[in-house]
């Protein structure tokens, strides 16, 4: 069914179709309407799930973990400061191998206080052991809700899954979205079966301690599982295309990069604007391309290096900054290039912090600056004379 809805509502429909058993959420700021929609669906009988209102984000994720430890499929959603308040529990979910799915509306972090979109909240939590996906539009948010459970609950992966959506730009804007039938969703997504639960037939110790001698081996296994997710994501998207007829591009998207000389690397919703500028520049005869990173963890290092092989210059555009160094996406991309032995000229463009608009003109300027040796680290809209160095 095609309908005109917000990104939040689209994601809520995706979660509804995944038939979670337990949804836990803190309903107050910085929460989005995702959980409000799910709550309405539950009360209207359109979704049979236990909806638990809790007193904080820390409790929201704890509740989802506890429910997952009974073998339930679980969901929670949050944003910015709420995600940060969950930080302790993020490790519990990942280390305990509980495949919780969470939607995070990417919004800026305090201070100064601001509720508009940037990606510093989730980028600051890359090392928590969660799969991190960044979607570009409302349809993808809906579709990836189903893919998320399929990947997270796969016995080869068993890793929690964070679906990141740019705050406001994606969560609060309206698009035409195709809501698939339940029957198709059921065909795509098997039910969750696990030994990782309270078991009354054979009681086990849940979430046990492990001494120093073996503890790091668990972390090694966690790392292996996250890497295995790369293959499972590809399988899930192939199956998704067969069932729903929509094909996604895996860990990254290569848009006109094959013969490109200048490529902008993006993440999330700004990709649409860059794609459009690439088309304009191509009409003007500039060999421009876009590399969109969809998954920050597991990180698609080989895929990125393969696409950027032979490119003259790369600009990484991102909505976060690791103060005192550079953007985190940039660091990761440079590492991927270095591992592959590629010496491509790269520079970093920080934009959109605190919801600042990124304009078409600024994207064109980035492409232009890639043609000459510019600064390594650039803040969009900051004049050259304003830098100290």
């Amino acid at each position: 069914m095609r309908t005109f809805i917000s990104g939040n509502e689209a994601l809520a429909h995706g979660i509804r179709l995944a038939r979670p058993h337990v949804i836990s959420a803190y309903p107050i700021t910085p929460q989005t309407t995702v959980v409000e929609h799910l709550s309405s669906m539950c009360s209207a009988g359109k979704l049979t799930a236990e909806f638990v209102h809790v007193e904080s984000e820390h409790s929201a994720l704890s509740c989802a973990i506890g429910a997952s430890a009974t073998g339930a499929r679980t969901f929670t959603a949050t944003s910015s400061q709420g995600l940060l308040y969950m930080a302790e529990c993020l490790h519990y979910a990942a280390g305990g191998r509980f495949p919780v799915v969470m939607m995070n509306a990417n919004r800026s972090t305090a201070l100064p206080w601001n509720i508009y979109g940037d990606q510093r909240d989730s980028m600051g939590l890359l090392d928590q052991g969660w799969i991190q996906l960044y979607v570009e539009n409302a349809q993808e948010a809906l579709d990836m809700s189903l893919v998320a459970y399929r990947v997270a609950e796969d016995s080869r992966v068993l890793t929690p899954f964070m679906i990141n959506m740019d705050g406001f730009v994606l969560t609060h804007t309206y698009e035409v979205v195709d809501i698939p039938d339940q029957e198709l969703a059921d065909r795509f997504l098997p039910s969750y079966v696990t030994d990782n639960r309270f078991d009354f037939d054979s009681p086990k110790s849940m979430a046990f301690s492990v001494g120093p001698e073996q503890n790091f081996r668990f972390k090694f296994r966690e790392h292996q599982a996250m890497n295995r997710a790369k293959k499972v994501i590809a399988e899930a998207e192939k199956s998704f295309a067969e069932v729903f007829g929509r094909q996604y591009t895996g860990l990254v998207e290569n848009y006109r990069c094959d013969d490109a000389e200048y490529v902008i690397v993006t993440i999330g919703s700004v990709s649409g604007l860059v794609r459009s500028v690439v088309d304009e520049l191509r009409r003007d005869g500039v060999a421009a391309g876009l590399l969109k990173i969809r998954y920050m963890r597991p990180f698609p290092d080989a895929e990125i290096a393969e696409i950027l092989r032979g490119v003259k210059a790369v600009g990484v555009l991102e909505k976060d900054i690791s103060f005192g160094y550079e953007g985190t996406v940039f660091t990761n991309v440079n590492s991927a290039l270095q591992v592959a032995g590629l010496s491509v000229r790269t520079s970093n463009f920080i934009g959109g912090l605190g919801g600042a608009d990124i304009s078409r003109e600024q994207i064109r300027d980035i492409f232009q600056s890639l043609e000459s040796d510019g600064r390594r680290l650039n803040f969009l809209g900051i004049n050259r004379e304003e830098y100290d160095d």
Partner: protein
Amino acid sequence: MSGKNDEKVRTIPFVRQGKKLTVGEIPEITAYEAGFLTVTNASWRTETPVCDRNRCNGCLNCYLYCPEGCVYRDGKTGKIDIDYDFCKGCGICAKLCRKGAIIMEKHGK
């Protein structure tokens, strides 16, 4: 005092028996029998929970609340038993047992 677990050695093959694990033997999950991959840890107990099996109805309420996960089910009787290698003697099980089946026995002077 019944401080023995007759079946304890049945399926807990690892650290308690001094065996080394290979990475392949590490489970993908963190749900296993009590004390898996840790050394025994019970010396701080000053009281020991003892289950009266005639009163225990196997509801497993104690299992759900045991912070050490050291309550297990006796395969033959369906009633509970406690792994004393890992029980810290906190007494939560005795406190919330609805049948009054668990009694905390003080250790001798």
